[in-house]
């Protein structure tokens, strides 16, 4: 073994990488917020009485679940260009991950909705609540508990997926920054090892805060 590790180079780059981590987190959070929005639309669409809505929702969900995330990001970056939508690396990555999140979350939400027994709605209505009120006060909070854990999982997935941005030329997220440093110095292992640790810590931070939140939110 003739290789000598040079960790100092990597540690010197730590501030740059942490700034990159912030971009990573930004993409992940945005993709989750947008993903939740579209997932709700998809979940509603899949129970619509119109065939076209059901078909569109099913197509989105099945494409998101049955093709690679990287493919979806590619489509956003290269594919959409053919129909005149030129996306930069950042929006392409965001669009790809959002598409993916929405597909998975839509299924999660549908499951969550089924998990709340219809008798709950009936009991709420019998107390004089309107349908919207009963849904908001009785069904939604219970559904939220069911989908909370899968949602945190999806968030961790989203964070890990952001690393694919480098493949479509993103250079200011954690992986992008790391790759830039790597190209300049060729200390591949050191840089990517540090990046791995940062990803790990972010993932754990998210999981841990979710667990704390769950502990405070779901006391029943």
């Amino acid at each position, binding site marked *: 073994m003739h290789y000598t590790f040079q960790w100092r180079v990597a540690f010197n780059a730590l501030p740059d990488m942490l700034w990159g981590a912030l971009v990573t987190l930004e993409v992940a959070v945005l993709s989750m917020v947008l993903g939740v929005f579209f997932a709700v639309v998809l979940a509603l669409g899949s129970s619509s009485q119109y065939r076209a809505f059901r078909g569109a929702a099913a197509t989105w969900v099945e494409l998101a679940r049955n093709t690679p995330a990287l493919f979806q990001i590619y489509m956003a970056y290269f594919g959409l260009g053919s129909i005149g939508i030129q996306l930069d690396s950042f929006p392409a990555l965001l669009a790809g991950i959002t598409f993916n999140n929405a597909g998975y979350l839509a299924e999660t939400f549908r499951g969550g909705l089924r998990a709340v027994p219809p*008798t709950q709605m009936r*009991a*709420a*209505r019998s*107390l*004089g609540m309107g349908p919207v009120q009963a849904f908001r*006060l009785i069904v939604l909070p*219970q559904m939220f508990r069911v989908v909370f854990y899968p949602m945190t999982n999806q968030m961790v997935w989203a964070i890990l997926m952001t690393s694919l941005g480098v493949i479509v030329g993103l250079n200011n997220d954690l992986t992008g920054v790391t790759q830039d440093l790597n190209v300049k110095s060729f200390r591949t292992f050191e840089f990517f090892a540090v990046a791995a640790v940062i990803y790990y810590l972010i993932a754990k931070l998210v999981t841990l805060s979710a667990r704390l939140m769950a502990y405070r939110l779901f006391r*029943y």
Partner: protein
Amino acid sequence: MSIEIQDVHKSFGNLEVVKGVTMTVEKGEVVSVIGGSGSGKSTLLMCINGLEPINSGRILVDGTDVHARGTDLNKLRRKIGIVFQQWNAFPHLTVLENVMLAPRKVLGKSKAEAEAIAVQKLSHVGLGEKLKVYPSKLSGGQQQRMAIARALAMSPDYMLFDEVTSALDPQLVGEVLDTMRLLSSEGMTMIVVTHEIAFAREVSDRVAFFHKGRIHEIGPPAQVIGAPQQPETVAFLKSVL
């Protein structure tokens, strides 16, 4: 002031479960509805507060046609409390919050007011010590009493009970019946669908015997339970007593 049921028919698909029922429950009365499973008695309760639509006939609550277009069901349901066989506690709320919710959100009472009402109703059904507990920590009987308090907190004029003891362990039935006895002694108007014949006989002003979607006999308990006229009633009572 009364609930008037006039020739009500109700079907699920091709299956007609209520086949022309007529009866009137006056304010202050306790009417028990007995009969075999699937005789349509629970369905009728759901029709009274509009949780189920009806196919024909009319149901008037204090003169308001429940199933008429334009009837504000949410408003109507405020004066009709219902307690289900499965108590349907809201699992994400504490006992106190379960009972406070509707007075606050439906009647628009302040938090303090709602809490005062809830505490009073819960104490009334013997759950004054369990205010901050989540329903999952309660026994079935306690959850059912909570459901009664939840309905009472809306100060309803009528209370409907849908086989409220059927899903309970035998040793828990008594506490729920006691609560209902208390209500009837206070003059609450009640329609009680039940399998507890002895209880029906004790608290009711009138008893209605349901069979295959129709009322076969209705009258004072001493008559319907004590001296039934129809062969179906006799057969039913023989099978449950």
